């Protein structure tokens, strides 16, 4: 089949978040895996219903924080002990308690930076264009619409059967999503 003629997927619109979660669960039970929900605000349990379990972000942020702490302390140690030793107030070169405030600040800075950049990177943002934007009603996903999209790359996907399945969920509408 010609790649450019296969749609990206089929999308169903719902008007309440609870219905979307229920339908996502039904679709998962039906065996669909390559699918995603689109909502105007985060909905508890939707990602689990879609079969999403692992989230690497907390681990990355922890590593970022540890890196920031070590790097922050090393920076001060290098500058004030190795590279340019100064005696201040008769204290030892490695007067580590005085290095704690900046070590703390660097921990927070690095962890926060990783939290934001990691979230964007794992989400694949920025992505200025995505096939789901081709559905005219999709602009409601940032207002009051709740969407479920089953992608054509799912092995279970069949244009007719999947459409029938989505229509059986009694959505507001079912739309075809243009390919990339």
């Amino acid at each position, binding site marked *: 089949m010609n790649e450019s003629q296969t749609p990206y997927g089929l999308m169903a619109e719902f008007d309440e978040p609870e219905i979307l979660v229920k339908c996502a669960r039904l679709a998962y039970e039906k065996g669909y895996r390559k699918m995603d929900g689109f909502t105007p605000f985060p909905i508890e349990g939707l990602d689990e219903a879609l079969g999403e379990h692992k989230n690497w972000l907390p681990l990355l942020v922890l590593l970022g924080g540890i890196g920031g702490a070590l790097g922050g302390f090393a920076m001060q140690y290098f500058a*004030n002990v190795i590279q340019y030793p100064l005696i201040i107030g008769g204290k030892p070169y490695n007067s580590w308690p005085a290095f704690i405030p900046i070590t703390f600040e660097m921990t927070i800075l690095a962890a926060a930076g990783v939290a934001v950049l990691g979230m964007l990177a794992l989400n694949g943002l920025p992505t200025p264009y995505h096939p789901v934007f081709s559905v005219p009603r999709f602009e409601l996903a940032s207002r009051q619409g709740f969407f479920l999209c089953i992608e054509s790359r799912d092995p279970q996907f069949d244009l007719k059967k999947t459409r029938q399945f989505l229509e059986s969920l009694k959505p507001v509408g079912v739309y075809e999503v243009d390919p990339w």
Partner: protein
Amino acid sequence: MAQGPLIDPNLTYATVTDKISSITLTRKTSLYWLLGVFISFALVMLLMLCVTVLLIKGVGIWGLNIPVGWGFDITNFVWWIGIGHAGTLISAVLLLLHQKWRTSINRFAEAMTLFAVACAGMFPLIHVGRPWLAYWLFPYPNTMGLWPQFRSPLLWDVFAVSTYATVSLLFWYVGLIPDLATLRDRAEGKFAQVAYGVLAMGWRGSARHWHRYETAYTLLAGLAAPLVVSVHTIVSWDFAVSVIPGWHTTIFPPYFVAGAVYSGFAMVLTLAIPLRQLYGLKDYITDRHLDNMAKVMLATGLIVAYGYLVEGFMIWYNGNVYEMSMLLDRMTGAYAPAYWLLITCNVVIPQLLWRPSVRANPWMLFVISIVINIGMWLERFIIIVTSLHHDFLPSSWGMFYPTRWDIGTYVGTIGLFLSLLFLFIRFLPVISIFETRELLSEEKEEGA
């Protein structure tokens, strides 16, 4: 709960979205806004003038001299950075504590933080004497073979304030992304669509994205909460680590942090009350929000009052003559009127907030919040100037008188702060739209 609702239950996801985004997208630019921008932009011009003259002539144009080497500049720095603290507190600490009432005030409180930190950061920079060399404060390999002296609280301050500014910006921007997507989808003009579209980075509300987004947002809140405490603690160490009578005291970190939150909530009220009036946002920023903020102000105000009390008590109890002399000078000396005005503004007048009828009256709250802003500015002025002007030796006592440039720079930063706020109100959603939808969904579930 016996109090009024946090949000009108008759609203829907669509009406909430339309109402908040209309302020940015469709509503005609109001005359109040133009007038406000005109005045505050004129003050920015004053700031530019003051800074230009400062760059040409040096810090001698200010009233600073030995012994009072820190005057309006550092007073303003501490005042502005303190104001910023309420934004982070509202957005981070109240998020972690699941305080739902934060939803409609967090966005502009965060914006307030950002703009207040911008104003704050300027003062140490222009105070350093040769501001064009301010980058020497950062550690970087250089041909002079010099490194900063990391044992100084002043350098800790550089890192604390720049980290605070960066994390506040990240937190604010991350919070904005879904709302920028809403504006992108609702904007009519091509330019607005492209501008909001670029800023929204292609956000499409995917469930997987939301999951990581919420994780990142909660983690940021968890990081920002200790950060905000550390920032004002480090600011207070600028004073407490020295040996000057009136500065060298261990009560400073907690009472600076409480004072920061106190002044910040006062500023949020000063801004929120006219904002909700002019833009008809009373369904969102309800009387219950004002009541809660007034209670936080009262509580932190009492901590601050306790701080004043303990400071005085410790001076009396430890019997140090220099400390005692400083305290008596503060209460009866040249700056005594400012000291008693500070006590009136920060300790006496806010006691009115005990009365529920005062907390229910927005205009009373507005006046009290301005009184507290003035009081908190005076507090920093008193701490900085009275301590410096009256230290150990009578031969090194001296007076500080502000010049017109001191006053002009201060007023100018107020103009900068307000200009940035006016631009923010016009071009970005002042209330978090997606969190309001979420709140609505939760309230509906509870009601059902």
